[in-house]
């Protein structure tokens, strides 16, 4: 690429955009390599803004993992904010990688991480802006391979016409195996198709074009079959057996500008044993694997030294479930207190024990506490297997109020399976009981200015959960529930927030969508959809238009109850947790029966059979 274009972008374009710091690329610990000796160029793309993407731990890990390889140069790419995009289009500038400012259309790999469904249009937009053909079928020899991974890759089908191959599961080992296959392929000067064949043999790699899908007359799927010899019938996700031996970078990029999570993220364990039935993360990230306190301490030490961050945040799905949490917290606190490095404990189930820990950790700040009962009645909490009782909640909130907290947030979902208006009213009732508990604290002892924030999101049934067969609640019903809660919570001391059901409908469509949705995605993009997760950019009408233009009904995907025997679009993907287990959990849910935390006794989800020798401890 002409050197002058790079200078032009930097010196002439950036002064015209909002937050030019997004596009600089020379942050501390960013990797810049000379091109001599580079064999593979990898564009690691996060299909959202810089601020969101730079908060993502997975990207940090894989960026350094790849760059630790001498012959690989991995660079970052984020979705340019619309002001930057329109300038780029006007001046005919293609999507470039942050570090080198080279156009990514010349790279070997363009890799996307799929964190949420509503970022899919940004993928189409980024490919277009990059000048890379948007569809797999349009790509020719010399074009980059467009790949994807991340939690949404477990139902890869809506993107199957766009992505050449998916990498399922944890990437630390698999990514390097794929790179090795590529090296061999490149040396031999083979064809594009041949690389896809070779890479499909790497465990966890899914090449959608090697599978045929046939449909029944009622539009459900009849079968999903490999159309090539040697391609696995079921693609198994990858797991790292021992997290203590897994790669973890000893440095991380320190952004110049403020990003969403601007701190050291110390991943204490993967997976979750709670078994909440609505939670996809709880199923797909199994099994639970902890890092040892020693390993975590050693990672923390290196990251503190190399980043200069003033805060360490313990990262996991449920911090309180880490078996040596107090030991770890105490060790980190005593080591870093003198350096004034703070510790934060998100995703912590609040109870009297964890409160004590929080008190120690957050010595001065009495910021808000967050509780997630998820449903308003005990009956519904049993259905979703959220093993929290009203008594638990009131006790924990009460303990917090006794300590002087006066700002609490309560998270719920509406539209959960079997929900009635009574359950919805239970949300408000619970809010009032929490309020009541606050006023039981003597006036001179309680924190001032009670504020109870109640947020309700709209339930989206997800693949690989016991609710994967369930219909989503329709938009009118959800709006009615939201209005009802609005009325009930119109009182001083309460703040009520709710999610847009229109957006949740689209999430539901793409979460459980099939191959036929790729064209809807492209059409929506043509109609101007991008940054759908951002209120100010979300164009619901355009989306409805896109569905109509493609002759596809969103209701078929979002609102339809599936038969238990239906071939689901992701039935050729194996995440370890078995269909048998999901069915049994589904049946129990409908009967309101709970399932124990599998730390106490194995509940037979199937994950232990994924790898030879088992993976559960």
């Amino acid at each position: 690429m002409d050197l002058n274009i790079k200078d032009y972008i930097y010196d002439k374009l950036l002064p015209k955009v909002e937050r030019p710091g997004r596009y600089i690329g020379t942050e501390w610990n960013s990797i810049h390599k000379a091109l001599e000796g580079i064999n593979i160029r990898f564009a690691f793309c996060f299909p959202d803004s810089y601020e969101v993407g730079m908060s993502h731990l997975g990207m940090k890990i894989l960026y350094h993992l790849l760059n630790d390889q001498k012959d690989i140069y991995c660079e970052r790419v984020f979705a340019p904010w619309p002001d930057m995009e329109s300038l780029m289009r006007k001046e005919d500038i293609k999507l470039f990688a942050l570090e080198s400012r080279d156009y990514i259309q010349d790279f070997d790999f363009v890799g996307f991480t799929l964190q949420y469904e509503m970022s899919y249009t940004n993928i189409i937009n980024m490919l277009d802006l990059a000048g890379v053909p948007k569809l797999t079928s349009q790509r020719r020899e010399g074009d980059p391979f467009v790949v994807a991974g991340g939690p949404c890759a477990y139902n890869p089908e809506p993107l199957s016409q766009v992505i050449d191959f998916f990498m399922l599961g944890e990437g630390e080992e698999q990514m390097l195996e794929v790179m090795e296959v590529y090296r061999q392929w490149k040396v031999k000067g083979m064809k594009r198709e041949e690389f896809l064949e070779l890479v499909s043999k790497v465990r966890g790699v899914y090449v959608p074009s090697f599978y045929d899908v046939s449909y029944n007359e009622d539009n459900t799927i009849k079968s999903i079959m490999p159309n090539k010899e040697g391609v696995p019938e079921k693609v198994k996700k990858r797991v790292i057996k021992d997290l203590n031996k897994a790669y973890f970078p000893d440095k991380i990029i320190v952004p110049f500008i403020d990003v969403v999570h601007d701190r050291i993220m110390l991943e204490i364990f993967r997976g979750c044993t709670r078994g909440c039935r609505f939670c996809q993360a709880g199923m797909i990230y199994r099994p639970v694997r902890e890092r040892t306190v020693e390993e975590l301490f050693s990672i923390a030490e290196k990251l503190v030294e190399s980043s200069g961050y003033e805060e360490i945040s313990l990262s996991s799905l449920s911090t309180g479930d880490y078996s040596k949490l107090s030991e770890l917290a105490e060790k980190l606190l005593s080591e870093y207190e003198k350096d004034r490095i703070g510790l934060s404990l998100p995703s912590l189930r609040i109870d009297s024990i964890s409160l004590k820990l929080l008190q120690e950790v957050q010595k001065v700040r009495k910021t808000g506490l967050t509780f997630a009962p998820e449903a308003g009645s005990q009956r519904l909490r049993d259905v979703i297997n959220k093993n929290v009782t009203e008594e638990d909640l009131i006790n924990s909130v009460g303990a917090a109020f006794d300590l002087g907290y006066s700002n609490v947030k309560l998270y719920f979902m509406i539209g959960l399976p079997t929900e009635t208006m009574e359950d919805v009213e239970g949300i408000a009732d619970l809010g009032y009981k929490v309020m009541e508990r606050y006023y039981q604290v003597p006036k001179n002892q309680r924190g001032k200015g009670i504020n109870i924030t109640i947020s309700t999101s709209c339930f989206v049934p997800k693949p690989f959960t016991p609710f994967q067969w369930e219909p989503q609640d329709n938009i009118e019903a959800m709006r009615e529930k939201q209005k009802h809660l609005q009325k009930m919570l119109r009182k001083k001391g309460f703040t009520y927030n709710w999610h847009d059901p229109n957006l949740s409908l689209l999430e539901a469509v793409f979460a459980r969508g099939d191959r036929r949705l790729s064209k809807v995605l492209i059409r929506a993009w043509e109609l101007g959809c991008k940054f759908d997760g951002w209120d100010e950019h979300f164009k619901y009408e355009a989306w409805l238009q896109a569905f109509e233009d493609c002759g596809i009904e969103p209701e078929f995907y979002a609102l339809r109850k599936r038969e238990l025997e239906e071939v689901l679009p992701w039935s050729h993907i194996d995440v370890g947790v078995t269909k048998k287990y999901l069915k049994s959990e589904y049946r129990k849910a409908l009967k309101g029966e709970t399932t124990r935390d599998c730390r106490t006794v194995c509940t037979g989800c199937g994950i232990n059979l994924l790898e030879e020798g088992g993976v559960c401890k």
Partner: protein
Amino acid sequence: MINMRLKFIKGRETKYISHLDLLRTFQRALRRAHIPMAYSGGFNPHPEMSFASALGVGLTSMGEYLDIGVNEEISGEDVIMRLNAVLPVGLRVENAVVLKEKPRSGMALVSHARYNIYLRFEKDIDIEDCLRSFLAQDNILAVKQQPKKDFKTIEIDIKPMIREIKALSQGGGEVVLDCVLSSGSKANLKPELMLQALKKQIGDIFEDEKIERIDLYSDMEGELTPLLLIDNA
């Protein structure tokens, strides 16, 4: 607490970093460098550090100043060496001095700033002549936006805030203006505003290619003194 003053370069790679982001960038670099920072008291202690002046986004500088407080003796050379090893490309500490007890802050001291402004003219012009007629006006009016008042505009006379403007070199339509403008809390003139007034006088016949701040000064009884030389121990 021991006070130190650091003079640093903000180069091309960091010219888009805003004041607040630069503060955070230095906080983290100071940590990486293990500079024994002193902390403020109160509920939310923060490291003792302050810039003498905010630099506009998009401008580079050869002379920015950061005052820091440390609670252990450390030499200027040591600070320079340790910080430069851990600063991102585009930031470089040029000098660091220990200040006398209870020094005046850089922020309170600064009264003027020197800028080099690189201009490209559409055609050859007599820049000396232009500057003479520009400075000979009784009032030099410029329209300023007021961010704190809903961006309402106000016309002001900037002449009292221009201490000096001269052309450093000329040829092929390129001119470098070397100017000293008021800077700081009492009076502050951004170079961009001065250029706006110049355009009004001589026509929209140039583009500014680059604006670089050269140094910051304090008016010591009429004499402009670089901040680095004031209140040294």
